[in-house]
């Protein structure tokens, strides 16, 4: 399978657009940059991990700045991009604290968002010709 070598640096405006796409739809940045194998893996894996978190009755935390840990979890949740808003629109992610899998669900949701942020940073590096 062809893996692209380090590309030339793209203009900063384009790089930011790529990062926005990578955040909104996991893997979109790598697909845009021609790294289709990586992009497809992220596109399949991260939304699936997020969906598993919802299925395990995890909670999409609210932005409560008075509770710093809750706010940090909310920032991590939103790292997954559009799937977060889709879940919110479908009234998913209320969480059920007495469910045996509640904490696992939270871990899936939070880590899916954080992993997507790492994917965005990787797309930034690729777009800047660093990888």
């Amino acid at each position, binding site marked *: *399978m062809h*893996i692209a070598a380090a590309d030339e640096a793209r203009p900063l405006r384009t790089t930011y657009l790529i990062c926005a796409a990578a955040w909104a739809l996991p893997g979109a940045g790598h697909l845009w940059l021609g790294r289709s*194998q*990586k992009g497809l*893996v*992220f596109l399949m*894996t*991260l939304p*699936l*991990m997020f969906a*598993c978190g919802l*299925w*395990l009755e995890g909670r999409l935390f609210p932005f409560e700045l008075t509770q710093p840990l809750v706010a940090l979890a909310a920032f991590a949740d939103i790292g997954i991009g559009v799937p977060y808003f889709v879940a919110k629109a479908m009234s998913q992610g209320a969480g059920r604290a007495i469910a*045996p*899998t509640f904490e*696992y669900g939270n*871990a*899936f949701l939070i*880590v*899916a968002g954080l*992993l997507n942020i*790492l*994917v965005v940073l*990787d797309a930034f590096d690729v777009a800047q010709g660093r990888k």
Partner: protein
Amino acid sequence: MTSHLGAMVVFALFVSVVFATLMRDEPREQLRLGLRLFGGLVGGGIVAGWLLYPLPF
């Protein structure tokens, strides 16, 4: 799914797939790193579980 081990294995699978894809470019290297990460996460989780088992809290 209410199995703690099952949830941990699925979690380890997702994390190792994403990290291996992110950190390596060649598919063969991705597979090797992914397997090592997966084994480390699952094995480490089981070992930590046994070490913590005697604790009363």
